[in-house]
Every structure is written in structure tokens, then in C-alpha cells.
């Protein structure tokens, strides 16, 4: 495949694979509650994600190590268990919220309660992983995810004021509900910088056999794909601000969100929203289940690879085979999918330093990166965003839980 085509496909899959339950719910809540005021959090999370995805791809291209593999080798198994357990727990909750998102989309379309969809959805996800290849998971779901561009069309049709939108890029204090404001801000950062994304990306780079000749492609795919993907999440925020915030509606339930597209796009808006939610969450659930399997298998030195037959990497396949039904059980308990999604994202932000600091140490180690170690800008941007997001989450999460 020509490099140009690979770049195009990489950017397109980055766009199509960006929107999922977390980014959709947090952007919609932010827009509904605070208008354009939280655009900056989305921009910050997207820039940080682009840096981290680029780093994960660079590590894989230069050292031919995946992230967990390099972490275990560099820091030893005892240290590695800390990020392993943290990322596994957070990713498990995010997986449950993505499964909830697919089930909700099916409930919206059919009227059949979401708990009845859990088993078929898990079976569908498992079959896709069991029978499919890495390319099918990465490209297939992401290409279908291009349906989420409907939010951009909706936002353009609603015609937001460019000046007000630009003003939202500058952080500002809210006039009301500061605890909620900061909680949503860290949830947005958590939704953008989910560790599963760069674990999945680094494993994909190794599966696809990237080497140093891919460094340019990696940079363009990470920067372009994430920037355009972040643009779709921004479009969700704009639609929510224009339809819900202006009408005095705050998002307490997923049921309120489809109207942000039916309002500008009519009957097709509802259909496109349901398709976006279903496809976005299905694709993300596939990636998270795989990222969990990669994390455990690579970290513990097992044989791994989505393109291998399950019998050739049995323990790797066992991880996603167990993770999917266990995550489905969380939804069956009747937990509110929106609350689960938002809290999962805030917890992701809280856990960022645990995943980011070892990554940065690796990215500055010439033994792994040779001449391609990090520059100061990448180090400073990622470390600052992670630490600030963690500190704000540490304060905002208890305020949100105990303050109602």
C-alpha cells in the first residue's frame, strides 16, 4: 500500500474512531450546562492525546516494543503491576460504558429495554474479535464511524457564532456550579486521553510491522486523525450548546441527547444519532477489549496478536473473552449508563499520571528511542495536562459524589 494511502486511511480511521460514549456524553453535558465555555478542555485533551498517540507510535516504530512490553522490561514486573492494574480497572469501566452505549442506541431505535440487548451485543463483539483480524477491527469500525460527521453537519446548520466559539478556547471560570464545571472539564480530558487509545495504537503499530520509515506517517496520523476527531467532539458540544443550553436543558439522561441532532437535521438527525452512538460505542468496545488483552498479554509476556488464530494465542483471546461478559454484567445491574460513562472518564483523568509518567520516562530513554527521544514541548505538554487533570479530578470527584 502506498504511504499516501496509509496516511489517508490512518487519518480517516482516527476521525471515524474518535467519537464514543465518553466523548459524546461529556461533550453533550459540557455544551448543555456551560454553552461554549468548555471548548478549551476539549482542545487541551485532544492536543494531549495527539502527543501521546504519536509517542506510542514512535516507541513502537523505533524500538519495536509495545508500550506494556517496554514498561515491564524497563521498570520490572513489580512496578509494571501498578499501571497494569490501574489501566485494566479504568479500561474495564470504560468498556462497560461503551457496551451500555451500544445497548442504549438499540433501545432508542427499537423501544426494547437496554438490558435485553446486553447479551446479543457482547456476543456480537466477541464474534467480531474471535473471527476478525486487526485490520477489520481498526479500519472496519472506524470507517463506519465516519457517520459521526453528521454532528459537524448539524453544528454547521445550527450556525454558532465563531467569536463565541473562539472565546470558549480560553479557559474561564463559570458563573454557576463550579464543582460541576471542573468535574465535566476533567471528564472531557479523561474521555480524550483514555489510555486504551495509545495502548491499542502501539500494539497496532507493532502488528502492522512499523519501522523508522513510518515516523512521518505516525506523526501525520496522530496529529491529523486526532485533530479532526476532536473537531467532531467539538461539533457535539456545539450542537448541545445551541439546542439544549439555549433552551435551559441540562443533560441528566442519555434520552435527552438525540434531540441535539434531530433539531437541526430532522428525522434523519435522530437516525444518524442512533447510528453514531451504536457504531462509535461498538468500535470503541472492540478497541478497549483488545487493548485490555494486549495490555495483559504483552505485560505478562504471553503470545499475543489479533491477527493470530485464537488457538495460537489462547491466553490473549481468553482475556477479551472474560472481559466482555464481566463488563456486560455491570450494565445488567441497572446502573445509569450516563453516570457510569462520566465517572469512568473522570477516573481515567485521575489515573493519568500512573500511565503517563512511565511513558515519558521511556520516551526519553535513548536505549529505546535512539535519536528519536522526546523534545521538551511534548514532555511538558503531556506532563502538565496529566498532573493538572489528576489534581482537579482529585478535588472534583468527591465534590460531585458527595455534593450530589
Amino acid at each position, binding site marked *: 500500500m502506498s504511504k499516501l494511502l496509509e496516511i489517508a486511511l490512518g487519518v480517516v480511521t482516527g476521525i471515524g474512531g474518535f467519537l464514543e460514549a465518553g466523548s459524546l456524553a461529556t461533550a453533550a453535558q459540557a455544551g448543555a450546562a456551560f454553552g461554549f465555555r468548555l471548548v478549551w478542555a476539549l482542545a487541551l485533551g485532544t492536543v494531549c492525546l495527539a502527543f501521546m498517540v504519536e509517542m506510542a507510535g514512535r516507541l513502537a516504530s523505533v524500538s519495536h516494543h509495545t508500550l506494556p512490553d517496554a514498561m515491564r522490561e524497563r521498570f520490572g514486573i513489580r512496578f509494571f503491576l501498578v499501571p497494569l492494574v490501574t489501566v485494566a480497572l479504568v479500561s474495564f469501566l470504560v468498556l462497560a460504558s461503551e457496551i451500555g452505549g451500544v445497548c442504549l442506541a438499540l433501545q432508542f431505535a427499537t*423501544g426494547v429495554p437496554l438490558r435485553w440487548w446486553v447479551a446479543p451485543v457482547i456476543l456480537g463483539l466477541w464474534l467480531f474479535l474471535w473471527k476478525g483480524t486487526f485490520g477489520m477491527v481498526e479500519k472496519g469500525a472506524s470507517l463506519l464511524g465516519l457517520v459521526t460527521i453528521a454532528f459537524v453537519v448539524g453544528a454547521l446548520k445550527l450556525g454558532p457564532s465563531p467569536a463565541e466559539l473562539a472565546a470558549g478556547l480560553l479557559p474561564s471560570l463559570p458563573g454557576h456550579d463550579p464543582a460541576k464545571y471542573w468535574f465535566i472539564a476533567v471528564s472531557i480530558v479523561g474521555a480524550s486521553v483514555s489510555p486504551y487509545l495509545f495502548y491499542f495504537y502501539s500494539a497496532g503499530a507493532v502488528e502492522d510491522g512499523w519501522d523508522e520509515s513510518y515516523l512521518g506517517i505516525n506523526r501525520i496520523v496522530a496529529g491529523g486523525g486526532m485533530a479532526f476527531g476532536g473537531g467532531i467532539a467539538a461539533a457535539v458540544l456545539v450542537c448541545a450548546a445551541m439546542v439544549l443550553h439555549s433552551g435551559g436543558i*441540562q443533560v441528566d439522561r442519555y434520552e435527552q441527547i438525540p434531540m441535539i441532532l434531530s433539531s437541526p437535521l430532522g428525522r434523519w438527525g435522530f437516525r444518524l444519532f442512533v447510528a453514531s452512538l451504536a457504531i462509535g460505542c461498538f468500535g470503541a468496545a472492540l478497541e478497549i477489549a483488545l487493548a485490555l488483552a494486549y495490555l495483559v498479554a504483552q505485560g505478562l509476556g504471553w503470545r499475543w496478536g489479533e491477527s493470530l488464530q485464537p488457538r495460537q494465542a489462547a491466553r490473549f483471546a481468553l482475556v477479551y473473552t472474560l472481559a466482555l461478559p464481566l463488563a456486560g454484567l455491570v450494565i445488567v445491574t441497572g446502573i445509569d449508563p450516563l453516570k457510569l460513562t462520566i465517572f469512568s472518564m473522570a477516573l481515567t483523568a485521575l489515573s493519568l499520571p500512573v500511565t503517563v509518567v512511565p511513558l515519558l520516562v521511556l520516551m526519553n530513554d535513548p536505549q529505546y528511542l535512539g535519536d528519536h527521544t522526546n523534545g521538551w514541548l511534548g514532555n511538558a505538554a503531556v506532563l502538565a495536562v496529566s498532573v493538572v487533570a489528576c489534581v482537579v479530578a482529585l478535588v472534583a470527584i468527591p465534590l460531585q459524589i458527595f455534593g450530589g
Partner: protein
Amino acid sequence: MALACALVLSACARSPASQAADARASLASWDSTLALLGRERARGTLPEKFIAQVLRAAAQEKAGAEARLRAAEAR
């Protein structure tokens, strides 16, 4: 550590007036949701199956907010 936890938890405690204000805001938000739903229904942009789901969610959330409001006002 215990002191830090105690400080955070005490900062989280909210007054009944603040809880009542939140409940009222939630009720107003759901009333606005129902008004928007009515407009979308009139335009025919949403299927009846979905409208029934929003109505059910609104009834549940409004009942919860009214209960929180009563509890806050009783304190």
C-alpha cells in the same frame, strides 16, 4: 491523609438551600426537555417509540427531583 479526607468530605457537605436549588433546576430542565420534545414531536422528527422513552425518563427524574426538593425543604 485522614485529615485531608475529612477536609474534602466536609467541603462536600451541602446546605439544604443549595440542594433545593439543584432540585428546582433539575425540574426546570426537565420541563424544558418536555417542551423541546413537544416541538420535535410536532415536526415529526422523532419516532413515537423514542418519545415514549423520553417521557418515561422525564417522569422518573421529575419524581426524584420532587422528592429531593421535599426532603430539602423539610430540613
